[in-house]
């Protein structure tokens, strides 16, 4: 029989993490501290997300793991293997089939639906950290809803670069109460957090924090009145393989010709699109 626990962690650890998740869901955007466990991978490599996944996964779940949009990168494959080896659950690359989706730095292009859980890996959970180094003080600022620091950072960007320069991790205001770091997802994905039918959980293993955006929660990206929030724009660019325009594109360089081309970042979405005619009905 199995020498180890189902889903690697012992039951009391999973219970503690689930309690933190419940509290996070009850207070959208609030960072709940939890006792981050040791795992066979180093902290900072997705341990926060992994602990949430491991503590929530059940035998009937179907998991999907993506790393910056790709199901096939080394990190995604390794994490998926670890989860499967310790649970024997099924996995998929299709967003619509998955019940638990662990992701690093992207929200899938395929819209999520009710009942699905999106688990994001978080490197830096504190949106005020770059203006206030002290955790004691940032906790107080959250308590008092004093977010001038986050606004100040945006103002400074506009001063220096003429626009909001947050490449990723553009802060959002959750449920009209907490300012939250959406993890380094591109600004392109920020609007997907707003009123999303799926539950979104955020786990920071190294920083020992869990937070959540429950289904259908109001999420607004911070922006000044006269500098509205903007997603990355790919004007006049489209995916080389699919011709898609309304997706997040990777910029690639053809090594032979030196030519710049663009390709859909979400690999499963790309595959599904390419296979749509052949395997009609499977997607």
């Amino acid at each position: 029989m199995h020498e180890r626990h189902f889903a690697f962690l012992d039951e009391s650890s999973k219970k503690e993490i689930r309690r933190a998740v419940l509290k996070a869901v009850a207070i959208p955007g609030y960072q709940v501290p939890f006792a981050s466990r040791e795992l066979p991978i180093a902290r900072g490599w997705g341990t926060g997300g992994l602990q949430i996944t491991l503590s929530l996964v059940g035998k009937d779940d179907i998991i999907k793991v993506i790393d910056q949009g790709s199901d096939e990168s080394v990190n995604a494959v390794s994490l998926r293997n670890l989860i499967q080896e310790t649970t024997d659950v099924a996995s998929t690359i299709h967003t619509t089939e998955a019940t638990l989706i662990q992701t690093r730095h992207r929200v899938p292009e395929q819209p999520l639906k009710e009942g699905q859980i999106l688990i994001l890996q978080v490197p830096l959970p504190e949106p005020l950290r770059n203006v206030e180094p002290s955790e004691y003080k940032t906790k107080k600022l959250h308590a008092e809803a004093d977010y001038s620091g986050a606004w100040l950072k945006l103002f400074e960007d506009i001063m220096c670069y003429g626009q909001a320069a947050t490449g990723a991790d553009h802060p959002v205001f959750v449920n009209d109460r907490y300012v939250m770091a959406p993890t380094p997802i591109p600004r392109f994905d920020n609007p997907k957090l707003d009123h999303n039918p799926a539950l979104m959980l955020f786990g920071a293993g190294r920083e020992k924090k869990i937070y959540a955006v429950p289904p259908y929660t109001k999420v607004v990206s911070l922006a000044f009145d006269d500098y509205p929030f903007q997603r990355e724009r790919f004007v006049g660019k489209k995916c080389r393989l699919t011709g898609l325009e309304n997706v997040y594109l990777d910029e690639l360089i053809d090594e032979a010709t030196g030519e710049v081309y663009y390709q859909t970042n979400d690999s499963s979405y790309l595959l599904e699109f390419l296979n749509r005619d052949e395997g009609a009905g499977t997607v």
Partner: protein
Amino acid sequence: MSEQQKPILILKDFNKTFGKGCAHCDGKPENRRQGYCPKCRTVYACQDISLSLYQGEIVGIVGESGSGKSTLMQALYFDSEATSGEYFLEAYHSGEENLFLSSSQQQKWVRNMLLGMVYQNPMMGLKMNFSAQSNIAEKMIAAGNRQVHSMVERGDTLLEQVHIPLIRRKDSPSHFSGGMQQRVQIAKALANEPPILLLDEVTTGLDLSVQADVLELIQKIQRERKNSILLVSHDLSVVRMLADRTIVMLNGRIIEEGLTDQVLEDPQHPYTQQLVYSLL
């Protein structure tokens, strides 16, 4: 007699102690030696300080290092909590609510809207790695402004007033000279046009010509805007130049107060006499 003017700031019996106190020193000022208890080492930084500030008035606070001047200023700006005392501002609920007992959110509002602070050390008052413009905007953002253009415009006006060339508005104060940093602090303090300015040793550490510059600037601003100013300094000439009234502090207590000329020309307390006569 004409109607008496009401002070816009009233401080009553303000105390600030660092330490728990003991049976020897609690409530027994006679057992404290120079502001601290020789038994439990509790520091009585400010003891029973009462003062008032009127519209358009500059009050100077002088005293040696460690006499409690900066502790007093920090409490007035809510940087540190008062141990006991009452603090009223006419502009806040008509001066009927003791601000020391208000919630920290209310204290923040008062700090952003009614007070402007210039610290002796610019590191305390400025974000050294943010541009001068952003430093000034911080106060306006805290007051709820979400319009970049209006904040930039206001920042430009203020920077011009404190004589900082606009080509340097995007530079961070860490690249500024000490005098310029002080002037950015003054611009920041003025951002929301607060009725009261708290200036803590604004010219200390600056060379004489820059000192004169900064003092002239303060005087000009005060004349134009009719701000009330509480000015801490251990430099008597600064106080002589700016202050209408002067308060002398020693070991956490006010030992003498009156019109500046009166205090400096005819000091009553032995310490004030010593202070005045030791002027070079």
